[in-house]
Structure formats: C-alpha cells, structure tokens
C-alpha cells in the first residue's frame, strides 16, 4: 500500500474520471439501451448509494432500512411543495434532506447500540415502521397508497430569466451536478479522520474504542450521513417523475440498494451507481425480450448469489483490487520477503539494545492531577457468578515507575488489568488515575484520561498499513473522543504525523510504514501492539504479556523498548517471564487465586517465602535473576 501524501492532481483522478463519465454517459450510453430517463434514475440510486457506501462499505454497518430515509426525504419535499407551504423546490429539498437526517439520528441512536445481525434486523424493522406510518396514520398528508402526485420541477433563477429544469436532458444535468457534488463530498469524508476511524471500526471495533474514540457516536455520524444522502435523493425523485410513490418506503427499495451496492462493489463509492446501472439496464432490456419479461429479477438474483459467493468485491471492487494489486505487487512481495527473513533469523532489530532512545512524544499527554501515585486500585473485585476472579485487590503504582503484576495462571491478572481501564467493569471497588475516578466511564473515556493498554493477543487493524494503524491511535489523543471534521484529510495534522514518525522510530518500524500489518513478522506485530497504545501518549501504559511468544533476542529488544518508554510514562506490566520482570520492575504485586498475596520491591518479592511457595516453587531462591 503506497500512500500518496502529496495533495496533487494525482489524488483527484477519481473525481476527474467521474466527471468525464458523467459528461460522456448521455452521449455514449443511449446506444447501449440507456435512455436519458434511465440514466437520471441510475444517478438517483447512485446518490443514495454514496451515503449507503459510507455506512456499509466504509463502516461495515449493513442497513436494510435506507428506504425509510429515502421516503422521508421524498415525502417531506413533495408535501411541502404540493401543499403550498414552500414554493421553492430548493428549499423543499433542503427541508426534506434535513428531515431525513433527523429521522436518521433517531433511528440510528437506537440501532447503533446493537451490532452485526441485530443492527440489520433493527434497521429493517424501522424501515417497515416508516412504511406503515406513511401508509396509515399519515395518509392524510402522504396520500397513503396513492402517494403525492404533481410535484413541481425545480426552477433556476428568478422572474423572466427563470429556467424550468424539465424532464429529459435538463433533469439529467441537474442530477449529474448534484451527484458529482455528492461524490466529491463523500470522497472527502472517506479521506477525513472520521473516514479513517470508520474504516478502523469495520476492521476492529473493540480496539478503536480502547484507543479512546467514541465508537457509537462515529457510527451514528455515518448513519446520519447515509440518511442525508438518501433524503436528498428521495426529494429529487418526486421532482424528477412529478410524483412521489409510496413504494419509495418499501423493503424492496432498501433491498435493491443493498443488491446494487454488492453488485457494483462496496467501499468504492461508485459501486452503488454501477450496480444501479446493471440492475435498471437488465430490468428495462430483459423485459423487451419475449419469454424473459418476468425473469429479469430471477437472473439478477442468481447473479447476486454468485457474486456474494465468489466475487464479493463486486464489479468496481474487483477492478480496483486488480489494479492496486498489480501496482503494489512488487512492494508487497518485498515486504513479505522482509517478514520471512526476520522470522528465519528470529531477530527483529538490527540495532543493539544498549542504546537508549528518547521516548518523548510530540503529542502531549492529557493533563492530570499532580500526585506521586499514578494509578491506584482500591478493593477491586470482579465476580462471575460464584467465581471470584478478582477479590478485593488494592495496590498503588508510583508515578514514573515500572510496576509488575505477576501470579500463576488463573490468578486474575488479566481480569484485574481489564478493570484498570474499565474494559471490564468491576463488581465493586474503583480505580483512580492521579486521584480522579476512572471506573464507571467506559474504556474509551479511560483512554482519554490517559490509560492505554497493549493486549495479550494482538488487536491491530490487519488490512491497514503500520502508519494508518498508528494514525488511528494518535488521532484519538489529538482530536478527543469525537470530532466531526469531515472536510480535512486524515493525514493533514502535522503533530499527528510527527507522533507517528516518532513511534515508528522507537519501534524500529519506519521501513515498514506502508506495509499492511497482516504481512508483518510476529515480533513486529507485538511491538506495533505496544506502539498503538503508546501513540495515544498515555500517562499510564498497561502491558499485558508483551514478551509472549518472542524469541530471546526479541525479548531483549522489547525489554529495552519498555525501559525507553518508562522515561516518560508510568508502566504496569503483566508477564510470565520472571527473569525479565525482576530485571525491569521496581515494584511487584503478586496475585494468587484472585487475592493480593504480596506487594513490594523486586528484592522483597524475591525473598518472600509465601510467594515462593505459591508461585515460584522455591526455584528462583537459588538462582540469581
């Protein structure tokens, strides 16, 4: 994955290609069976699709209820015009779009609470609800099953010079202009920090939250964006066919949008447009063939199943994939060769581990209270039914120290760790960061307070490059839990980029900046896992078994890295490698069967008979660590 960081003409090739296509389409495509009305209709579907692709393609949220927003936009616009409340089509379109967005805010607020299957079911159900509301209780306004006829076309200009945007060519031009504007905006959203975070949410939702982003709010943002696009398209539909049909609200409409997006290719923005062209062309042209009049949708359904089974990327997705694959093949093969070499030699670092590196980061840590105690656990307990995983553990972590938590398997270390950043909420007790309460705020607030954690099992964004992985983390510190900066590009914050560069130097991953993380060697992934936590500029860094599965030389390098980090940041570490722990930690807390067994300096713990009995089995007493 190469990354064009210069904002030159090159990065606008997609926009230019769309513009050229929109100009050429009405000249070329009518020869292939696309009438001008059909093209206008395709653009209308493409416009809903732009929003839907941000929701589904980018953020991975499959909604089967987009018809609700299409319908709301359409009927609000049509009603305002036909009833005479508004005379300007433009104002009515704006009102319809905003209404759809407001409805999207309500539905989305309920829907984003649930994930996966539930999200899809809930959106579908609310789509049906909107259909029935249009059909019965509001039929006085909407015409129920008859819809609203007589929707006027837009007018450009005033008085004598006014131009009516009539059906045919003028309407196509209007739709093309609006689609192009919508596309440019959608592409900016995709390239914005919000877009980067939405893509990361699709890759690994839990990690995005753990880095400090407000995941539900970002999902809701995508949902409202999709609703706004759908609402605008709905409003335009009524004007285009001078009639607002009730089946805009139907489940069919939502389903058709989903199918078109898959056929055209999700996460490409133009996929839904291409899918709509295929769908509508098949419908119009197969109907002309005798014997096939009723079969067009069957053909489409079979094609759809085949696409889902075999060509999940869709038409545009496969083309784009083929193109980037070809362009980046050499880079990927080189990256894979590096990975193989690292894994064969068992060593990740070329530099010696004796050199101390400066771990000061460009992004400042959050401001906290001034206290000698960085982190304090007070009587933390977590019970699972009758099992007391952690049972009333208290300890204090001194500011600037490396503090280890050890204990045999099942001692409750991981559960304790998860409670320290409110990933798991404790049954009782609480956690204080520099004297202020952490418990009860949730994991993303804890991250914003300044507690970061690297996980026992890697939680990376596997298809994103190293740089993009770190960017998601750094953006959380720079932008806070939520900021809707849709128009800036994700890589345009200099301090964020400086942070990423600093972390990559610290991790020795600068050469791998553009490598997708799933290609990295195991040791590199482990270091990046730590780097992700570090990139949020934490006050306290929790490391859950950072050495697990590493070769001896990788362990030494990682221990050196941890010492470097400790210059600027308090560290709490859980680890089974006791030699490493006794070499690193100033203070050690020992857990045994969910309870605190001992708490003291490394020497005290080494000499503690109870600890040896419970855990070390007396082995280490005879050996120098």
């Amino acid at each position, binding site marked *: 994955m190469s990354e064009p960081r210069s904002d030159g003409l090159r990065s606008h090739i997609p926009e230019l290609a769309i513009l050229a296509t929109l100009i050429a389409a009405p000249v070329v495509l009518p020869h292939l069976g696309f009438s001008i009305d059909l093209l206008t209709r395709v653009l209308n579907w493409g416009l809903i699709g732009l929003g839907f692709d941000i929701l589904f393609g980018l953020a991975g949220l499959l909604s089967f209820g987009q018809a609700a927003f299409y319908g709301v936009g359409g009927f609000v616009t049509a009603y305002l015009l036909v009833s005479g409340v508004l005379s300007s089509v433009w104002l009515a379109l704006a009102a319809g779009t905003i209404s759809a967005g407001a409805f999207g805010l309500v539905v989305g607020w309920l829907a984003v609470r649930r994930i996966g299957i539930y999200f899809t079911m809930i959106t579908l159900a609310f789509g049906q609800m909107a259909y029935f509301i249009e059909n019965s209780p509001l039929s006085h306004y909407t015409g129920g099953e008859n819809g609203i006829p007589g929707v006027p076309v837009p007018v450009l200009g005033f008085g004598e010079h006014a131009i009516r945007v009539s059906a045919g060519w003028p309407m196509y031009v209007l739709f093309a202009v609006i689609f192009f504007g919508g596309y440019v905006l959608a592409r900016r959203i995709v390239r914005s920090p919000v877009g980067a975070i939405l893509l990361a949410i699709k890759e690994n939702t839990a990690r995005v939250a753990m880095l400090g982003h407000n995941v539900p709010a970002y999902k809701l943002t995508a949902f409202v964006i999709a609703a706004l696009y759908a609402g605008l398209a709905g409003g335009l539909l009524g004007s285009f066919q001078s009639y607002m049909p009730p089946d805009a609200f139907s489940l069919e409409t939502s389903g058709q949008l989903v*199918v078109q997006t898959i056929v055209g290719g999700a996460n490409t923005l133009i996929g839904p447009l291409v899918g709509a062209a295929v769908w509508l062309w098949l419908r119009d042209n197969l109907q002309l063939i005798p014997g096939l009049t009723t079969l067009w949708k*069957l053909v489409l359904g079979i094609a759809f199943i085949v696409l*889902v089974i075999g060509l999940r990327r869709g038409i545009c997705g496969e083309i784009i994939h083929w193109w980037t694959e070809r362009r980046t093949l050499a880079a990927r093969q080189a990256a894979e060769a590096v990975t193989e070499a690292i894994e064969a030699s068992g060593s990740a670092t070329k530099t010696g581990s004796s050199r101390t590196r400066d771990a000061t980061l460009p992004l400042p840590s959050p401001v906290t209270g001034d206290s000698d105690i960085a982190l304090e656990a007070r009587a933390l307990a977590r019970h699972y039914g009758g099992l007391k995983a952690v049972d009333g553990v208290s300890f204090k972590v001194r500011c600037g120290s490396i503090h280890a938590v050890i204990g045999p398997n099942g001692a409750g270390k991981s559960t304790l760790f998860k409670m320290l950043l409110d990933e798991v909420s404790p049954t009782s007790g609480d956690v204080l960061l520099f004297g202020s309460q952490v418990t009860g705020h949730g994991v993303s607030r804890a991250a914003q307070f300044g507690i970061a954690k690297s996980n026992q099992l890697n939680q990376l964004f596997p298809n994103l490059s190293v740089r993009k992985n770190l960017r998601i983390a750094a953006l959380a510190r720079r932008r806070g839990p939520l900021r809707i900066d849709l128009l800036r590009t994700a890589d345009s914050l200099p301090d964020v980029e400086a942070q990423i560069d600093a972390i990559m130097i610290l991790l020795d991953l600068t050469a791998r900046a553009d490598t997708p993380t799933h290609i990295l060697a195991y040791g590199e992934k482990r270091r990046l896992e730590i780097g992700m936590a570090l990139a949020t500029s934490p006050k306290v860094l929790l490391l859950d078994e950072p050495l697990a599965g590493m070769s001896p030389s990788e362990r030494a390098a990682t221990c050196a890295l941890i010492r470097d980090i400790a210059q600027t940041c308090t560290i709490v570490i859980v680890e089974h490698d006791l030699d490493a722990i006794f070499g690193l930690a100033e203070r050690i807390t020992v857990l045994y069967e969910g309870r605190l067994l001992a708490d003291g300096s490394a020497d005290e713990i080494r000499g503690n008979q109870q600890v040896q009995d419970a855990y070390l089995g007396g082995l280490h007493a005879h050996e120098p660590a």
Partner: protein
Amino acid sequence: MPSWPALASQAFNGLALGSLLALVSSGLTIILGTLGVLNFAHGALFAVGAYAAFVMLQYTQSFLLAIAVGCGFMLVLGFLLERLIIRFFYGRPHEDQILVTYGIGIVLVECVRATFGGNAQRVPTPSWGQGATQLGFLIYPTYRLQLIAIIATLLVGLYLVLYRTSMGLVVRAGIENPGMVGILGINLRRTFLLVFAIGVVAVGLAGMLYAPVVAVTPDMGANFMAQSFVVIVLGGLGSFPGAVIGGLIAGEIVSLTSAFNSSYSEVMLYALMALLLVLRPQGLFGSEGRV
C-alpha cells in the same frame, strides 16, 4: 372504545396471528441460534410453503395430505439449500450470510412468480374447518381456532424435540457455545443440516397453514419476516421461549391496537420494539452477554 365482543374477537385474532408469528420466529431463531445465520430467505420460504399447499391441494384434494407432502418438499428444499449454499457461509461474516440468504430469497420469490404469476391465488379452507364456532358471546371462524390449536401442538412438538431429545441437547448446547460442542467431538455437520431443514419446515408449515386465511402472493412473506425480526428482538436472540412468547405478544399488539385504531396496528409493534431497545436491549429472554 370498542365493544367487548369486538375486543375479544381481536384478542383471538391476536392469538392466531401470534401463534403464527411464534412458529415463523422459532424457525428463524433456531437457525440463528445454532448456526449463527440470520436467514433473510425466511419470508420467501413462507411464501414457498403457501404455494406448496396451493399446488398439493390441487393434486391431492386433501388438506392434510397436501401439508404432509408440502412438509416433505420443504425438508428437501432445506437440505438442498444447506448443502449447496448455506454451509459454505458458516465461517464468513454475518453480512455475507445475510446477503446470500437475501439473494436466495429473491431467487425463490422470482421462481414462484415465474411459475404462478404475480396474481393472488386462493387456497380454500379445508372441509373440516368450514364455518364458524359459537364461543359464548362470540362467533369465531372455526379454521382460525383450529389454526391456533395446530400451531400450539407443533410448538409443543418442537419444544419436545429441542428439550427432550439428545439432538435437541446438542442444538441447545450449540446455541450456548458452538465451539465447545465441536471440541467435545460431536459432529455438528449433521446437526446443522437438520436444524436448518427443521427451521425451513417450520416456516413452510406456517405458510401452508396460513394460506387459507390470506391471499397467496409471491411477496406475502416479506412483512412476516420483518415482524418475525421484531419478535426476535423482543424475545432475545436465539431463544426458543423468547420466540414463542414474543410472537404471541406481537400478535396481540397488532390485533388489539387495530381494535382501537387500525391505522396504528403495525406501527405500534415497531414502537414497542423501539421502547424495548431502550429499556432492555438484550430482549425479554436474552442474556446480557450475547449481542
């Protein structure tokens, strides 16, 4: 305020609709709970069931025989769908499962439309279900009462299969923790196949039994599917008791609301779902951890 007989009659309608939704939703929920697949072809399979009854009735002239043959047909259809398509999707993301079953739904509905046309078909009420029955102060169509009884029997049967047989034990264990069941050395392949087929038969049966009450059209299943989604959100994911009780609640809400103001009957159902999502997002019978 509607009269008491009208209200009672709507309560019975609610029971009939509710038991039907319970049957449809339990088919959906055991597939969802065991295989983890949300079957978007469920509505189409409902319609296929209704058309199966329509066709078989013309050949056999006996409603019971038609249903028996229809069930066999649904069973074979279920086996085929699982073997040919569904089983390749167990390891794929939920979105892909939803998409492929949605595609299957389109193909099934369009096959029905291509064969029988888009117009509504009538399935006559069976000879033993003609007329109305006197229930104290209320006269109620006999077939609908029988419908309630038949579906209640079927649900009890499904309950016995799920809770009293060793296969049911495997299915319920699979709902709780599919990975563990596999580790224990139980062959889930056959169980999955059977569960999918049972789910298909359940929804097909619902379609067959409901065919005499409504107009049979290719698209008749879509709204039932949407309602059964609401039932599952109400009852809790993968919960069989949740599906049955959620179905009855949903049926009564739709019917009783229409006794007061018919234009709000469907809307009320979705409003209740929204309310429950705020107050108890895991559903009435769902446990906290499963989402």
